[in-house]
């Protein structure tokens, strides 16, 4: 049973790596954005399986949904290239990106032979199990940081898209 669960995890990990590779290798930026959303969806499944359901829901709604929308909107606003430029761009991309699969295979081979020893601590018995309690009661400063970061983002966007005053 445990082996089956591990096999499912490995299949999902493999699909996630494949989606990430497709995201990087594909020519179209729109397909790249879709590939990123797929990678994010695979990551969500893995997070569910690693007992992190709350973070998984955030990942699915925010990273797979909202960020994809931001990317697709940005891509649609930017102008498409001319046919000649597209052909030149394809040749350039092929030259730059064809090393990636080879690099990945080499890294995979090297890592499969290396055996690092990690000394991870044994959990203490009084660990809080509810993420809501941790977030709201034990780490309220994190929430303050999140609010400040969100406000920074909002002000940044306002400043970036501020229209020049008419004289």
């Amino acid at each position: 049973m445990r082996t089956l669960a591990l096999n499912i995890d490995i299949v999902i990990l493999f699909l996630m790596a494949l989606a990430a590779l497709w995201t990087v290798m594909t020519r179209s930026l729109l397909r790249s954005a879709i590939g990123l959303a797929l990678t994010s969806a695979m990551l969500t499944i893995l997070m569910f399986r690693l007992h992190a359901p709350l973070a998984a829901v955030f990942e699915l709604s925010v990273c797979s949904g909202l960020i994809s929308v931001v990317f697709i909107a940005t891509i649609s606003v930017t102008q498409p290239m001319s046919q000649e430029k597209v052909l030149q761009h394809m040749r350039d991309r092929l030259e730059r990106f064809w090393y990636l699969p080879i690099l990945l295979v080499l890294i995979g081979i090297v890592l499969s032979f290396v055996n690092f020893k990690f000394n991870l601590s044994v959990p203490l018995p009084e660990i809080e199990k509810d993420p809501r309690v941790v977030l709201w009661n034990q780490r309220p400063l994190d929430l303050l940081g999140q609010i400040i970061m969100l406000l920074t983002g909002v002000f940044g966007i306002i400043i970036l898209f501020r229209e020049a005053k008419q004289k």
Partner: protein
Amino acid sequence: MSAQALTLFWPFCLFIVVLFVIGFYCLLVTFNLIRALIGLELLIKAVTLLLVLVGYVTAHEALIQSLVITLIVMEVVIIAVAAGIALGLHRHNKNLDTRQLRNLKG
């Protein structure tokens, strides 16, 4: 760390490294700003998965979930602002090729 967690730890580590390498390579070789942002996203996803894995292995799932939620909020803000900067650059320069963006070059 239990034997079950140890068997889970290694395959995940391998794929986290693979994801990190993909993101880093994309960031390194691309000249398109949007694709660079996509590479950055992949790097953040690798870090997120590493955090969740360590939380699972050390049984600190609740703490790690709160950290991951904070990380996701940061990620959204960074991507939104960076996409805004990319749009602004496109409006001024009519392309997103980093080789052409030399307005601030000394």
